[in-house]
């Protein structure tokens, strides 16, 4: 990633806002390795993620991979030893993974995000979601929406007979016909009702009103796995009710086709869309089973933001101009003293300019 002058300044300016925000919520910084052994993560990657990761052999022939997702690399560190819980951590770093065939520069992304480890349930979910919501507000984007979904609900609706990866693909492109066929082919009852449920997209307020009726309207109570569906729906209703009360509501939507872009999610999922961006600018969710893959089992939730996508859209970032004044004085010593005084008041001063008299 190469950034120069104003663009680099904008990047740093926004990054400072993000880091200050995380620190103000009591989160501590973490750094993850940029290279690790591929075998450590292989079973946690979907086929597509594996294909999109950069892998190469070391001098001894062992396969290495570049960091393609900070959460995954962080989960290994936290899973091996995370100390007393809960832990609140944040990061800001590059990730490298294949994006576009025609543009190799797009393969390096800059992610900033936060993870809350060791706090499960509604309070943990709300802490992560509200921290993200407040941060998006501070970034001053023109128009944005936070879409909340649930992997727990998806898994419950799919049951054991359908591979989640295929269902997630179909939900992503909202292909009702194929999704209904997937349910029918798997021999699940009420395929149309299951499809309609997962296609729900509306304001948090609409969902709170609409969801309780889903159980009877779609005959879910008669279906296999109905307890898990009802439990996941109840949790999402509680989440939506709280978010409705805590936010301006217009920015929050419940979108059951949002099931997370990573295979390790297990609870709520979130994606943020903004006017001017061609993909989501932030995503995250709950992944209570991920850390256990590396040793210590602990509940966890978090989000990451695609900083390079956000920078041109954030009025906070674009509004900051790098203005610099020259020091006054005819000698170096005079200019140095003048600059020192003025820097105390927050001015940016260079010592030697063409016009050193200021």
């Amino acid at each position, binding site marked *: 990633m190469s950034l120069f002058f104003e663009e680099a300044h904008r990047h740093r300016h926004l990054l400072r806002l993000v880091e200050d925000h995380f620190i103000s919520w009591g989160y501590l910084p973490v750094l993850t390795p940029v290279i690790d052994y591929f075998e450590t993560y292989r079973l946690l990657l979907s086929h597509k993620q594996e294909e999109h990761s950069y892998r190469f052999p070391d001098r001894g022939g062992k396969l290495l991979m570049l960091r393609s997702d900070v959460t995954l690399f962080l989960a290994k560190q936290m899973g091996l030893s995370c100390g007393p819980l809960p832990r609140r951590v944040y990061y800001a770093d590059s990730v490298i993974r294949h994006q576009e*065939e025609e543009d190799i520069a797009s393969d390096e992304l800059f992610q900033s995000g936060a993870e809350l480890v060791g706090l499960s349930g509604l309070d943990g979910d709300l802490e992560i979601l509200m921290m993200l919501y407040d941060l998006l507000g501070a970034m001053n984007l023109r128009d944005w929406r936070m879409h909340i979904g649930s992997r727990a609900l998806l898994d419950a609706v799919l049951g054991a007979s359908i591979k989640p990866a295929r269902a997630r693909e179909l939900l992503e*492109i909202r*292909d009702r016909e194929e999704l209904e066929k997937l349910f029918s082919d798997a021999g699940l009852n009420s395929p149309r009702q299951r499809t309609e449920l997962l296609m729900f*997209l509306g304001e948090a307020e609409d969902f709170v009103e609409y969801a309780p009726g889903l159980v009877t309207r779609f005959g879910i109570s008669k279906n296999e796995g109905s307890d898990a569906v009802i439990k996941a729906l109840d949790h999402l209703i509680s989440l939506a009710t709280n978010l409705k009360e805590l936010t301006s509501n217009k920015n929050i939507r419940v979108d059951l086709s949002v099931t997370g872009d990573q295979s390790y999610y297990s609870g709520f999922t979130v*994606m943020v869309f903004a*006017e001017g*961006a*061609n*993909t989501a600018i932030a995503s995250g969710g709950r992944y209570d089973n991920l850390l256990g893959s590396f040793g210590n089992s602990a509940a966890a939730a978090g989000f990451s933001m695609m900083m390079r996508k956000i920078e041109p859209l954030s009025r906070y970032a674009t509004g900051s101009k790098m203005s610099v004044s020259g020091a006054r004085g005819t000698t170096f010593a005079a200019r140095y003293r003048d600059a020192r005084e003025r820097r105390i008041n927050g001015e940016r001063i260079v010592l030697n300019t063409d016009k050193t008299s200021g």
Partner: protein
Amino acid sequence: MADPLTIAIPNGRLLKPLMDYFSIKGIQIKFGSRKLSAVDSSGRLEFYKVKNSDLPTYVHHRITGLGIAGDDTLIESGHSFVRLSTLPIGKTSLCIAAPKDSPAVEEHGASVVNVATSYVRLTREWFHRRGIPVKIIRLGGSVELAPRLGLAEYITDLVETGGTLKANGLEILKKLADLRVRLIANPAYFKLHYREIGEFTDILTRGKR
């Protein structure tokens, strides 16, 4: 008033039937002479005429939020889009064809089947799914010439009537896929504008009321 929905439409064989279809559904658009963009009479839809093969690129990069294209164009682009509806125009099929009396590809004696095509992804996927070793030769057009010139024994191509194949001494051996024309959306654009898009999709399906 909110910004109009932006829609890319293909400037090729589909354009005429598409404009007729819009007209039936009560969507009135008039492109000025040599103009490549136009707003409909309601002011809520803004259309851009683009080259068929470029259409997925415009929608993927969200230059337009919506687009209308055939499955062949969409699948070959390799991008992922929200599928909003299927239009009852421009139906076609991807078929495998060869000179008369050629064996079926499954019974082809050689270790690898040579196939010339403009539809590389669709063809490769079909052969791979069946475990038939294939060498695909990419061509930009006039694929029917490939067997006669000795470039490949087989071709895959879009077939509507089969007239061009017949005129070049070829016959259809098998239909690989039915291809339809779809209204698609950039996934992020859809998420922000799903209500307005839903209204447009309703008009396309049921017509203006």
